[in-house]
C-alpha cells in the first residue's frame, strides 16, 4: 500500500514537482489560461469595454480561455491535402515540447531544484533556441503562402533577437561570475538586484523577450492584418491550441528567467519555511507575472512595426545596447575588484 505520506513525498520530489506542478505543466496551464484572459480583459479595460464576461459573471469571465480550449479540443482537425502530413503534425508538437523543456532547468529555491548544474542558465537558453526552428518547418509544411511568409519573418527575427538576448545574459553572467541560476540568485541576495546593477542589460533582455514571444509592437510573424495568422494559418483544432500557447510558454519561461536574472528570484523576503517550495515559488511567479503583464499590456498601447523596422531595432538598437551592457558589466567587475 502506498500511504498518503508517500504520495505527498512523491509529489514533492523535486523533478516531479518541477515538471508537473510548478513551474511545470499545471502552473503553466493556469498561467496561460489566466494570461490570455487577462490580456483580453486589460485590452478591454483600456478600450472602454468589458471584455469576456458572461461566461462567469461574478469573476469577470476568468474561465473564458477554458471555453476556448474546449472548443479547440472538440473541433475537427483538418490537415490540408497539400500539406506535408508528418511535419505538419509533428512540428507544432515539437516546438511546443522544446519550448516547454527548459522549465526543468528552472530551480524553485536554492535547496529545491530538479538538477543542479553549473550551466543551467545556458541549458535554458539553448533549449529555447531550438523551438523556433520548428516554426520554420511549420511554414514549409503548411504549403500556404501566408504561413510561408510568416515563418520566413520568424526566421529573420530569430537572429535579431537572439544575439542581443544572449549578450545581455552574458553581461549578467560576467557580473555574477557564474552560469548557474541558483548561484545567480544567491549572489543577488548578497548584493542588489540585477536590474539595478545593469539596467541596460535588463532593458535589452525585456525587449528581446517581447520580440521573441511576438508581443506588440513586435508581433511580426503573426501579423493579423498582413499575413492572417502567420505560420499557424492552416492549423485547426487542438494543434492550433498548441501553436497559440507556444508564444505564451516562451513568455512564461523568459519572464521567470527575467525574475531570476534581474529581480532577485525568490529572494525579496527571508522566508521562514526553508523546506517548503511553495513560498519561494510564489514569489518567483509573482515577479514573473509582473513581467508578463507588462508584455500583454503593450497590446493596448502600440500598433506593430514592420519587419524591416523590427530587424533594424534588433541589430542597430538592441545589439549595440547589449554591447554597452557588456562593457558596463566588465567595468563594474573591474571596479569591484
Amino acid at each position, binding site marked *: 500500500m502506498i500511504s498518503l505520506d508517500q504520495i505527498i513525498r512523491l509529489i514533492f520530489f523535486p523533478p516531479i514537482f518541477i515538471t508537473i506542478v510548478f513551474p511545470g505543466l499545471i502552473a503553466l496551464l493556469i498561467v496561460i489560461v489566466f494570461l490570455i484572459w487577462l490580456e483580453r480583459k486589460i*485590452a478591454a479595460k483600456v478600450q472602454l469595454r468589458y471584455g469576456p464576461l458572461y461566461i462567469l459573471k461574478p469573476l469577470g469571465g476568468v474561465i473564458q480561455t477554458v471555453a476556448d480550449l474546449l472548443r479547440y479540443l472538440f473541433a475537427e482537425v483538418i490537415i490540408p491535402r497539400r500539406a506535408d502530413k508528418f511535419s505538419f503534425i509533428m512540428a507544432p508538437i515539437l516546438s511546443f515540447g522544446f519550448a516547454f523543456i527548459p522549465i526543468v532547468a528552472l530551480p524553485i529555491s536554492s535547496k529545491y531544484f530538479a538538477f543542479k548544474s553549473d550551466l543551467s542558465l545556458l541549458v535554458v537558453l539553448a533549449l529555447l533556441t531550438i523551438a523556433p526552428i520548428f516554426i520554420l518547418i511549420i511554414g514549409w509544411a503548411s504549403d500556404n503562402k501566408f504561413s510561408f511568409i510568416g515563418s520566413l519573418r520568424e526566421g529573420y527575427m530569430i537572429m535579431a533577437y537572439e544575439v542581443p538576448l544572449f549578450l545581455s545574459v552574458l553581461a549578467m553572467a560576467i557580473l555574477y561570475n557564474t552560469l548557474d541560476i541558483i548561484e545567480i540568485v544567491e549572489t543577488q541576495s548578497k548584493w542588489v538586484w540585477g536590474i539595478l546593477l545593469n539596467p541596460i542589460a535588463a532593458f535589452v533582455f525585456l525587449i528581446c523577450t517581447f520580440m521573441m514571444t511576438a508581443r506588440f509592437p513586435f508581433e511580426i510573424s503573426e501579423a493579423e*492584418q498582413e499575413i492572417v495568422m502567420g505560420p499557424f494559418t492552416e492549423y485547426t483544432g487542438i494543434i492550433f491550441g498548441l501553436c497559440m500557447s507556444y508564444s505564451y510558454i516562451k513568455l512564461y519561461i523568459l519572464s521567470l528567467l527575467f525574475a531570476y536574472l534581474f529581480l532577485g528570484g525568490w529572494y525579496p523576503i527571508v522566508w521562514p519555511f526553508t523546506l517548503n517550495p511553495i513560498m519561494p515559488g510564489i514569489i518567483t511567479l509573482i515577479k514573473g507575472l509582473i513581467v508578463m503583464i507588462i508584455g500583454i499590456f503593450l497590446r493596448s498601447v*502600440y500598433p506593430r512595426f514592420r519587419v524591416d523596422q523590427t530587424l533594424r531595432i534588433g541589430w542597430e538598437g538592441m545589439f549595440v545596447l547589449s554591447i554597452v551592457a557588456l562593457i558596463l558589466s566588465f567595468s563594474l567587475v573591474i571596479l569591484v575588484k
Partner: protein
Amino acid sequence: MSEDKFMQVLIGPQHPGSGHMRFIVKMDGDIISEFEPDIGYVHRAVEKIAESKRYIQIVPLVERPILADTANINLGYILALERLLGIDAPPRAQYLRTLLAEINRIHSHLYGLGIHGIMIGSSTIFMWCFADREIWIELAQELTGARITYSYMIPGGVRRDLPNGFNEKLSKAIAYMEERLKDYEKIFINNPVVTARLIDVGIIKKDDAIKLGIVGPNLRASGVAYDVRKIEPYCAYPEIDFDIIVRKEGDAYSRVLVRFEEIKQSMKIVKQVVEKIPSGPIINESYLKLIPPKLREKAEQTGIWKMPAIFINLKPRKGEAISRVEAGRGEVTHYIVSDGSPNPYRFRVVTPSFRNLIAFKYTMPGHRLADIPAIYGSLDYFPPSADR
C-alpha cells in the same frame, strides 16, 4: 508558388486586412511589384435597380452601399433630383441638411480612423473611435429617427425638425469629443510606432493625385485644395466659415492628419449651424400646400412631417442633372437622366471609394507587404460603396 522570382499572393476576400475585396499582389521578395485590386464582391447593381424604382424609393437605395456615410450620399442624390424638379429647399432645411451632413462626416471619419488603426495593429484606437462614433450616431438618431440609414433629406426639404434639447446635447458631445481628440493624439497620432509605420509610406504626389483623380481627404493630403463645399457651395455652406485642411506630404500619415483635423472643422461647422439656423418651414412651400391644413397644424406643433402623397409619383422634367457633394470620403457625383416618367431613365452614382480605387494600383508598388494594410487603411476605402 510560381517558378519565376515573383510570388503571387492573393489577399482576401476572407482576410483580416482585406475587407470585401481581393488584392492580387505580385511580390518580389518583400517588395510589391504589381498590385491589382479585384473588386465587385459587393456589386449589387444599384444603378440597374434604380431604373425600376420611383424617385423617392431611390433615397434609401443609394444609402445602402455607403452605410458609413449615408447623409452625404443622400444629399447628393437629392440635390441632383431637385435640379431636375426645379425645386429648392427652404433655408431652415438647408441648415438641417448641413447639420446632418457634418455629423455624418464626423462619424464617417471616426470610422475611417478606427479601421486604419486596426489595420496597423492598434486595436485601441479602433475601439475608441467606434465608441465615440456612437455619440454622433446617437445625435443623428435623435434628429432623424434612424441609426445610420437616415433617409433624412427628401426633395424640397427634410423629414423632421430639430428636436427639443438637441443643442445642449450637441454642445456636450462637442466638448467631450474635443477632450477625446487629445487622447487620440497621445495614443495614435503621436505614437512612435504609428509615425514609424505611416510617415513616408504610400506617398501620392500632387501631380499624381490630380492625374489619378483622387478625391476627398486623400486629395487634400496631397496638397490640392479642392473641396466641393468651397468650390461649388451647396446647402448652408456659403454662409458658414470653415477651412479646407491641406497638407503637402501626401503620405499615409498626412491623410490621417487631414481626417483628424477635419473632424475638428466639422465640429466648428456644426456649432455655427445650430447658432445660425433660421426659423421657418422645413419643406418647400409648394409641397407644403399639398398637406391638409389639419395635418399641417399638427406637424408644425410636433416638428414631424408626413410626406405628401405626391412624392410617390414625382415626375421631373425631361433632361439630365448632375450634382456633386463633398462626402466624408470625398466627392460624390450623381448623374440622373430623366425621360419624364416616374422612374429615372438612367441613374449613375460615382462614389469617392470608386474614384480612390485607382490609387491602390499606383501607390502600392515599391512598398513592402506590411505596408498594404497601412496604405489601404489610410485611403479610407469602403468597398461596398465602390462596388455599389
